[in-house]
């Protein structure tokens, strides 16, 4: 099941984003996206890790860049969610199909899917609320978020320093 979901997510992310680019008249950019998706499927089939990492990076950039090219926020958001899910499932599938014996595979799969589903659902809910309320990012809010991000990154660095001591 994990494999099916993984391939569906990769095809959905890359194919959906390419289709959105075509619909908005940017078909020359759709082709590289389809290639990225194909490469990811190929890499995933052969158990390679780097195509998944490259896929996450390129599709996230493409989703963000699409906002300037006429893609709607919903389309880009959906592409990012599918990309994240595909990247996660690719890793999990590689882990469980490795050379090791996997015990309680059903429980591992169920736990993992539930967690991923929860992340996706909460993100979708937050995004839905934000889009419905049409929140505008003013300078003040941007500055506030910027401060929060800087604080968050600082905390993260401090956390990892503590852990590695």
């Amino acid at each position, binding site marked *: 099941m994990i494999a099916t979901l993984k391939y569906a997510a990769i095809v959905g992310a890359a194919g959906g984003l390419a289709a959105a680019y075509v619909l908005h008249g940017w078909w020359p950019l759709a082709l590289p996206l389809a290639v990225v998706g194909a490469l990811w499927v190929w890499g995933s089939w052969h158990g390679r890790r780097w195509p998944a990492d490259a896929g996450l990076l390129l599709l996230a950039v493409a989703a963000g860049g699409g906002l300037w090219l006429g893609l709607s926020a919903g389309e*880009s958001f959906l592409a990012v969610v599918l990309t994240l899910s595909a990247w996660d499932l690719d890793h999990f599938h590689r882990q469980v199909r490795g050379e090791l014996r996997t015990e309680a595979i059903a429980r*591992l799969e169920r*736990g993992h899917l539930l967690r991923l589903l929860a992340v996706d659902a909460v993100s979708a809910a*937050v995004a839905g609320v934000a889009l419905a309320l049409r929140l505008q990012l003013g300078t003040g809010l941007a500055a506030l*978020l*910027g401060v929060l*991000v800087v604080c968050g990154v600082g905390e993260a660095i401090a956390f990892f320093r503590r852990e590695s001591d």
Partner: protein
Amino acid sequence: MPPPSPRPRKAVQRFFLLGVVTFALILAGLGSLRGELVLLAVPLVFYLAAGLLGAPLPPALKVTRTLPGGRVFPGAPVAVRLEVVNEGPALPVVRIADPVAPALEVLGGETGLLTALPLGRKVELNYTVSARRGAYHLPPVHVTVSDPLGLFCWEKRIAVPSRLVVYPEVPRVRRVDIRPQGTLAYAGPVPARRGGPGIEFYGVRDYNPGDPLRWVNWRASARHDQALFTNEFEQERVADVGLILDTRVRSDIQVDGDSLFEHAVQATAGLAQSFLNAGNRVGLLLYGRVLDWTFPAYGKVQQERILQALARAAPGESMVFERLDNIPVRFFPPRSQLILISPLFPDDMATLVRLRARGYAVLAISPDPISFEGRALPAGEAAALGQRLAHLERGVLLRRLQQSGIQVLDWPVGRPLDVVLRAALARAPSWQRTVGVE
């Protein structure tokens, strides 16, 4: 020794990649004042947060590795069982790997496992390995615990002291006739060179009152007036036997995966068993890279000690022990029997002669390296001629040793040692015999 602490929790590469993408989206959104871009980072932020919340606590695992009791011989399957019990917090994803030592071959079963371990749960790994002769320390067990999303992990190497000793094959060696100058106090199979109760005729002496009449030598007595003579028999005692195994690198010749040294080790094991079963006191010296000395003793326990020493015997090189000159003679009781198992080299002769001169009875059992190596030589006139010359050279060496009063057994390792020993030692009538080169 306290258990090694786990390596610190670490964020795996995935965390950093995701962090960079998230950070880039947010920064781009804030920089361009486009809220949609920040919105795209929301699923990534929640994913990172979920990973952080589910980050595993330090694992507390009890690991035991069980190896079969009793002796293990080369190539025999050895069932290994690894038991892991979680005595700490629940672990969502655990990867357990028992890295098998490179010298061992996995025949079947699983050496790794990916599972979830709730508190108190136990999992087992069962696998079968086989190995060549040797003493192996099994490496620590690798345990990796990660959060369900695989963003953080603990790595732990748990040392589970386990030692697998693969004994050498012990070929059957029936009684080996030795005749050292000195024997011990207890009755045994070795002729003691002194008269007394025994089986073999030893000599004739004057009759002493109390001698059994059936011991009187009537034929000798009839030739003398007023004199009676009594037959004497040779006492039989146990003896001190020192086995010396040559572990110098040059004594190990490998041909098609077969090792001359292995044959020598097996011969030593067979001889040790034979002498110990006969009640003798046996010691073992491994002479090569180092001196590995097993103090002389009797019985089954000593047999175990010697087999363990032979299990760990390996050819090695040392400048000090390149020649046999440094054999520590004080290890061996005076006038005892020494048995050297070595292919023999020309520079060994002086040492062997010196040992003989010190009063030791020396038997050199020499696995024949020429015919052993000859199996791998290409057929041809030149190879045959070369082999013949080498045989002649070796023959000269062995004959000179025999002439020095050293028993020499030239052993083509293709034939069982027992057969060669019996054929060689049973033929000559005298205790002074030297065994002929075949």
